[in-house]
């Protein structure tokens, strides 16, 4: 794909915010140490009588506000990337229940704790919960959406590399919260087709 993937967009927002924040933090620490050393009682026995400066106040209100607005914009753009599902996406129905993830494919095939997807095909996840709140979290694809009883939420991702990835539950849901994990497995398209055509409902047995 030519345009950046949602993962790349989110990561760019991360890099920008961390980069700018790092510079600001470094500036604060250097100024702090310099002032404490330079204006110690020993070096500066007579303190300045300054009580403030309106122009400085304006500058250090407007400049951070501008930087903040830029961060807001980048964050918002990367969020749109996560929300904007391509039209050719394959829909998988995800049901969260205490404490497992159930995936149901358009063909009707059902799989527990294992999300199998073909490489190169955008995946839309339609998520709901059959009991309490959960949250579907796929760190590798920067995706996280709450699973809510009585509501349907969605997320999407673009499986661009064959491999196995983690799925976690991110909203506390009880004793088995930390064990409420699943696997995301991205397969070459032919292998996926073979798997999906196998009538048997799949378990975590691959």
């Amino acid at each position: 794909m030519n345009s950046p993937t949602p993962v790349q967009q989110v990561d760019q927002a991360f890099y920008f915010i961390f980069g700018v924040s790092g510079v600001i933090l470094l500036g604060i620490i250097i100024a702090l140490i310099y002032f404490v050393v330079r204006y110690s009682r020993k070096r500066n026995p007579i303190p300045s009588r300054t009580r403030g400066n309106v122009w400085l106040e304006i500058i250090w209100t407007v400049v951070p506000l501008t930087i903040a607005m830029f961060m807001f914009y980048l964050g918002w753009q990367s969020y749109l990337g996560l929300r904007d599902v391509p039209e050719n996406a394959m829909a998988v129905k995800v049901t969260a229940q205490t404490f497992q993830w159930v995936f149901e494919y358009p063909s009707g095939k059902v799989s527990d704790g294992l999300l199998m997807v073909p490489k190169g095909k955008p995946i839309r996840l339609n998520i709901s919960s059959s009991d309490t709140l959960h949250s579907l979290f796929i760190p590798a694809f920067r995706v996280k959406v709450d699973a809510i009883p009585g509501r349907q939420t969605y997320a999407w991702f673009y499986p661009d590399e064959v491999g196995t990835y983690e799925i976690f539950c991110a909203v506390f849901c009880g004793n088995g919260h930390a064990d409420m994990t699943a696997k995301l497995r991205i397969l070459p398209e032919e292998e996926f087709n073979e798997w999906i055509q196998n009538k048997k409902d799949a378990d975590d047995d691959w």
Partner: protein
Amino acid sequence: MNIPSPNDTRVPTFYETPSPKNMRGIWSWLITYDHKRIGLMYMWAILGWFTLGIVLGILMRVELLQPGGKFVDSQTYNAFFTLHGVIMVFLFIIPGIPAIFGNFIMPMQIGAEDVFFPKINLLSYWLYVLGGILAIVSLFAGGGMPDTGWTFYVPFSTKTHTNVSMATFAAFTLGMSSILTGVNFVTTIHRMRPANMGWKQIPLFTWSLYATAWVQILATPVVGMTLLLIILERAFGIGLFDPSKGGDPVLYQHLFWMYSHPAVYIMVLPAMGVVSDIIPVFARKAIFGYKAIVASSLGIAIAGSLVWAHHMYTSSMSDAAVFLFSFLTFVVAVPSAVKVFNWLATLQGGSIVMAPPLAMCLVFIVLFSVGGLTGLVLGSAGTDVHVHDTAFVVAHFHFVMFGGVGVAFLAALYYWWPKMFGRMYQFKPAYWGLGIFFVGFNLHYVTMFMLGLQGMPRRYYTYVPRFATGNFFAGIAGVVMVLGLAIILWNLIRSLRSPVTAPNNPWGSTTLEWQTQSPPPLENFTKEPVVPNYPYDFPEKPDDIVRV
């Protein structure tokens, strides 16, 4: 409690003069109207809860030293983080600075003899104690230790068999205490100032309490109602949050954060007030931008009430709502940045004397800045989706709450200790403790930032193997951090054994509480305090501070 012995030249201190007058022994404390005694009773209770909260935090770190839940089972771990959260939020940080220093110091800062409603003040204290007792009882009565997290999210909190009803009622009671304190402080600050103390002569600590008190009054009732709704839901199944009855679980999150985000500012604003009062004293220079600091306090109090749903970007809220709340969150970041720049500018050109309260304020500035800057990652919608509900969020709010508010709380203890107890403490152990704390704190929570970025969700009693190294390291660093904290607190407690020799104004401060003796007499002043035209006017050739 140790009662300081009177000094020849001194008038009797409030320790020797009960109020009401006929009270003796323990009753002269338990049913006192004196704002200073009430402040001290809060102090011991709050320090007790703080210690318990820290023990729970360490127990959680022990569990996470290795994966697999080998130390305790998940049910117990869930109770640990629920209790740690409830105790630290409702029993330590929210009341911490306002209840102790707001009570003890604020009336003196405005030259008053007490708060406006001394009896309501005592009632607030006992509601606080009652809330704490209920929280403890909820552990051992009913269906077992609450296991919902301090956020009590529905539908889990309405379905779990543990004793959530009593724990939420405890939080409700603590909320009532907080509202009453807020009403008392607003009234006191409006009505009890001397005629020549206008709004521009009020010290910044008192200003910050004023802004805080309004948030307490306006926001706390919302959480009070919300917590009662949980109890109604559990007892009668009214269905307000239950989709099968037409209710909505997300509604709960809105109601909860409508209070609990402003509550962040209930915690942070007084801490900012402490720092704004301490830095000028040790820099021997006027606070830079008095009006800007007051304006940013009020700005934070107002704008901070409009950003609650930034806790809910992944909760199926509409994209338009995400846009709006993300935007407002970046706006509210600015007044906090303004304060940091004003504190730095106060140091510039000063004649700085180093002392533990100032050192703690410097640590506050650094840790609070990290907390604020990492908040930008969470305010930004796309990045928040990845780190929401992970260890990153936990590290972020510990930087703000613990590294920020907690350290400012320690700074306040160290700054006002000579006034409260008439004793000086040693500087060296304080620096050592602070240094060890600072190193341990950063190693602990920066590691958690990294774990969160790598995708480790919060509230996990176990984890996948790739998080093992980070969690082990964080656990060790956490112990170092607590060791530093223990030294800082022990150094203060130890000073209570030394004689009552602190001068009235050991730091050369300019605010009114330092014009009376240490410890102060009942009703605070023996002669009318002189109100300066500007609260931070230092002599041209400043004196040194008093050291032991």
